């Protein structure tokens, strides 16, 4: 598939030495010809060595910048090295690389494709306040992006040429910048967003928090991030 040759798979990784090698190998074997870039986000373990041995290109940030900072570097690398499309995948193995062709296929008619977790396939489920928080966010961002989105906080996304060029310069590094603000910024900049249902695999470790207090704080910070994103002057994409 010629589409894969100019596609870069970016994995932000912070202390993921246990999981990252298996994920890289799976990506490289299910998507032949694709380049895999691991952005080692200030890890204190052997993430960089492990990833390099597994066959990925590794960029090491001297300190932790968060997913937003790591992704901007990924987009910058993509632009400098002539990649047209960028796919973001988590380094902990919860995203299935076999979904990537579906995402890439949708890039034909959209600039950003989100791998959505609640859109039918898979049994990933959150309940209670956190679910409501995510629903509210999804509704608001759907309005802004003028499409129906059910999962805006997914870390499984693909970006087409226009979005890649926009994000290489303007990817936000704020809290939740990699999800909420990047979508707001892109859709106000004239990029189109669609979603594709994907199945999630259980995370290597840890359970999503169900604490109502935490969910309330999360919703509050997310709302704040959204308001700030809407206040900022919109950026337009050239070409």
């Amino acid at each position: 598939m010629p589409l894969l040759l100019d596609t870069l798979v970016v994995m932000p990784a912070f202390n993921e030495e246990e999981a990252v090698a298996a994920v890289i190998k799976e990506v490289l074997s299910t998507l032949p010809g694709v380049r895999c870039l691991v952005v080692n986000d200030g890890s204190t373990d052997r993430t960089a060595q492990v990833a390099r041995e597994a066959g990925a290109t590794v960029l090491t940030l001297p300190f932790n910048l968060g997913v937003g900072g790591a992704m901007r570097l990924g987009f910058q690398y993509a632009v400098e090295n002539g990649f047209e499309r960028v796919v973001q995948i988590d380094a902990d193995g919860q995203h299935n690389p076999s979904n990537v062709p579906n995402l890439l296929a949708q890039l034909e008619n959209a600039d950003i494709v989100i791998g959505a977790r609640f859109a039918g396939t898979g049994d990933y489920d959150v309940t209670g306040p956190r679910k409501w928080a995510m629903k509210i966010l999804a509704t608001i961002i759907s309005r802004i992006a003028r499409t129906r989105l059910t999962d805006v906080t997914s870390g499984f996304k693909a970006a087409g040429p226009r979005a890649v060029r926009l994000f290489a310069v303007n990817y936000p590094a704020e809290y939740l910048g990699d999800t909420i603000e990047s979508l707001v910024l892109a859709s106000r900049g004239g990029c189109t967003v669609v979603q594709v249902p994907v199945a999630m695999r259980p995370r290597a470790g840890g359970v999503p928090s169900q604490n109502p207090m935490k969910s309330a704080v999360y919703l509050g910070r997310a709302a704040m991030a959204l308001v700030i994103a809407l206040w900022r002057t919109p950026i337009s994409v050239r070409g």
Partner: protein
Amino acid sequence: MNPVSYAFAIAAAAIALLAIIEMLRRQRFRERHAFWWLLAAILSLVVSIFPSTLEWASSVVGVEVPSNLAFFISIVILFFVTVQHSSELTTLEEKTRVLAEHVALVEQRLSVLTDSVERSSQPSESIK
């Protein structure tokens, strides 16, 4: 006002002003950071030497207790200083972020170049 508190007020203001000027002179301060502090120190020196200026100013703006005007102005100045600091902190964070990105990109290119140099120099060494 008793003479001791009068002298104390003048001394405090004078020391603050001298400290700021000295730090500026030793380049421990950039001019734009020093501005608000210089303004505050000069104002407090003037007010401590001539307390009547504060009374006059508060009667002009209609503040009944002159010291409240002094507190208000101090808070306003502190507010501007902290706002300026937040904004410069953001700029600095952005700059370090850009530097970190550049370091990562340069490091990766360097390792690719080192690898290719090593690979191309190895065969000639094995010939020797």
